């Protein structure tokens, strides 16, 4: 009631009516990822919530304005010339607007005008100064006193029930509350909600912030359609470029996973069954220490090693094996090496844990029965280690398919990883819904792929969690 030329007072019951007739209010502000892009959808909730309560500042604009607030349907023509405007109510609403200081109304030419109401704090509770009287306080106290015994008794029962739970008995009330609140909090706020939000996002149009929540903000499949069919204006039926990158990413991830498994399995077997004590600890250190170096640095180190004038090329040329340096980077050798190495621990540890639990006598028994080493591994060690193998392969596959740093740094100029496209949608493209759709396609495809593989190799989800 400050900036408007005239003050309009609206009584609380009017708000209800107002809410009914304006179906698309500004959305409640969702958690927004903070990115510097200007095209990001910004919730257009007004920030100047005056403590004066339901401030409705009317602004009279000429017809045809494309404001967020819709014009009242079927609203008649307000008579701006009249000092006290009595607005006819819309369908099913009874909106009463009283202009208290008509002399401040701007003089408008006669004709049709649209009344635009901007609701500032529609959801704010009634103003504090509406006054909670002594009576209310008194009644509240009496009510509280009356209710208190019941509450106390129920709360007592409730804690008793809670204490009867084995989980609570084992950990104590404080710790179990902590565990529950934080695990549930973690799962809900760190995993489910953000993913759901992105999921929702992937079905929306890429709108400029002012239009978000507006009539154009509807659900659509176009982001998914785009991945498959591309622009309608394109001559090709399918979006071959992106589909190809997608397929290549999945295929290469499978390849990297297999290479990783082939490298790690013998090593894990050796560490789990053949060595003990000092040498085992030494091996673990050798595996772990390099991972203290950060991922980007490791990727760049690989780039240096595989570069045209890098270590390997210099060596090969120096030894006369090659006439001229081989372009490992373009051939994606560096990329696959880097990706393989990046997640090697996630393969080795599940494998090690699984193989370590195998009774060495089983290997000896198989050998004694005449089995070759290959047969021993195929029939005895691998079946035993299957959950570990599944766990390691799943993690490596998922992370490789979702890797960004290594493809960015080590990928050849012609190669594109699917995550790079996603990144481009979010970053340079500024199209979050499109990026979300791509990201979800990748996630769901990976999950489906892994589940199919688990079905093929008869591994349960619980088996993986055991390791």
């Amino acid at each position, binding site marked *: 009631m400050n900036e408007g030329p005239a003050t309009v007072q609206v009584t609380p019951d009017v708000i209800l009516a107002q809410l009914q007739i304006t179906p698309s209010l500004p959305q409640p502000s969702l958690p927004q990822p903070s990115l510097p892009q200007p095209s990001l959808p910004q919730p257009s909730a007004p920030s100047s919530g005056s403590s004066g309560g339901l401030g409705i500042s009317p602004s009279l604009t000429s017809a045809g304005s494309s404001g967020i607030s819709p014009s009242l349907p079927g609203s008649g023509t307000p008579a701006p010339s009249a000092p006290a405007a009595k607005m006819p109510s819309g369908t099913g609403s009874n909106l009463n607007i009283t202009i208290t200081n008509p002399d401040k109304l701007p003089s408008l030419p006669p004709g049709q005008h649209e009344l635009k109401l901007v609701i500032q704090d529609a959801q704010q509770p009634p103003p504090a100064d509406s006054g909670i009287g002594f009576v209310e306080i008194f009644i509240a106290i009496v009510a509280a006193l009356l209710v208190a015994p019941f509450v106390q008794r129920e709360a007592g029962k409730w804690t008793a029930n809670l204490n009867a739970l084995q989980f609570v008995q084992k950990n104590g009330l404080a710790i179990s509350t902590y565990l529950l609140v934080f695990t549930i909090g973690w799962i809900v706020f760190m995993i489910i909600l953000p993913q759901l939000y992105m999921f929702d996002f992937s079905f929306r149009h890429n709108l400029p912030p002012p239009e978000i929540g507006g009539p154009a903000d509807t659900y659509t499949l176009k982001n998914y359609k785009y991945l498959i069919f591309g622009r309608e204006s394109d001559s090709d039926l399918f979006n071959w470029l992106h589909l190809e990158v997608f397929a290549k990413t999945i295929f290469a991830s499978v390849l990297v996973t297999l290479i990783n498994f082939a490298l790690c399995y013998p090593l894990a077997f050796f560490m789990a069954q053949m060595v003990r004590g000092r040498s085992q600890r030494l091996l673990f250190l050798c595996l772990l220490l390099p991972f203290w170096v950060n991922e980007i640095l490791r990727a760049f180190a690989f780039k240096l090693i595989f570069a045209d004038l890098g270590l390997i090329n210099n060596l090969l040329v120096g030894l006369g094996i090659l006439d001229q340096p081989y372009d490992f980077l373009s051939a994606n050798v560096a990329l696959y090496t880097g990706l393989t190495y990046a997640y090697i621990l996630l393969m080795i540890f599940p494998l090690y844990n699984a193989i370590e639990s195998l*009774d060495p006598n089983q290997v*000896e*028994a*198989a050998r*004694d*029965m*005449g*089995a070759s080493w290959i047969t021993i591994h195929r*029939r*005895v060690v691998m079946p035993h280690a299957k959950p570990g193998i599944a766990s390691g392969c799943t993690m490596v596959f998922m992370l490789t398919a979702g890797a960004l740093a290594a493809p960015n740094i080590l990928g050849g100029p012609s190669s594109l990883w699917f995550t790079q496209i996603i990144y481009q949608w979010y970053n340079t493209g500024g199209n979050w819904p499109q990026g979300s759709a791509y990201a979800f396609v990748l996630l769901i495809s990976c999950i489906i792929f892994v589940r199919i593989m688990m079905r093929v190799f008869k591994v349960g989800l619980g088996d993986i969690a055991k390791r």
Partner: protein
Amino acid sequence: MSSVELDQVTIRFGDFVAVDNCNLTIESGEFFSFLGPSGCGKTTILRAVSGFNDPTEGSVRIGGKDMRGIGPNNRPTALIFQNLALFPLMSVADNIAFGLEVRGIPYNERRRRAEELLNLIALPGQGDKMVSELSGGQRQRVAIARALAVEPEVLLLDEPLSALDLKLRQHMRTELRAIQQRVGITFIYITHDQGEALTMSDRIAVMSAGIVQQVGNGSDIYNNPATAFVASFVGENNAFRGTVSRAEGQFAVIDTSFGPLRGINNRDLKEGDEAYMFIRPEVLRPAKSDASGDTVFETVALKEEFEGSFLHVFLISDNPDKPFKMAIVNDANVTRHSSGTTVKVTFDPERAVALPIGELADE
């Protein structure tokens, strides 16, 4: 069917001598046991026969053929592990037929052979069960069947009964012996349980600290121990330490703190040699009060234990930790000995054994 010869076999792990110059021949079709306390080297011998480690010196011959350099997968032996090492992820039939599978024998043939072996071990039609569904004794028999499936010439058993409870163990002893007689192949059995060795074996090698102390059949080893270790390890025995005062014919008399005692002298003890006189609890019996001589001694009763068929009387010995034990057959006129009373004890010198001083088994 093959004999197993151990020819001057010595096995060392670094400086540690696990088996010291072992020479013995196990006849084809024999049930042969290695008996000894844990760490005596018996399992090492078994692993040398099965091929998991080659002897440092000497040679292992199976059927006259030197086995050096031949891996366990290529030897005509099959080993049954202490914990059986059945494959838990395979069915019973797959377990039994594993050795045939790795030899490339077709499925139907394998299946038929497994069924035959299941009949042999009295588990017909149980081939589709998982190992985890079987009881301890059944698993035991499956392990035997699995080893027999590859038709080994020598079956090696590494304390396979030790995980079973007493009742089952006793039952499996008879069963093992029966299976051995049915299939007729050489069994080499490793155990620290003398009861198992004595009941099942044709011959037993008693081992201590990497050395084979004595080879013989059960009664040989029990009645005519060759060393102090064998005498003290196999069965219960009372050891009287002293010096040989007389050696005449097949007897020797040893002066002990309980007076002179006479016993068989198989080890050519000479006068003045330090020696033990071993007398088994069941050889000792109460003497008449007027008895005397070198087959009688006097000591004090410590306590009595009544065990049904026997009454065990514990008597004060040289060693406070190890009192003498006398086992009296519980017949109508058995006399009770209350604690602290002086007891006169006698024995049959033909069943007392004089042996040179040597290491005793620590119970």
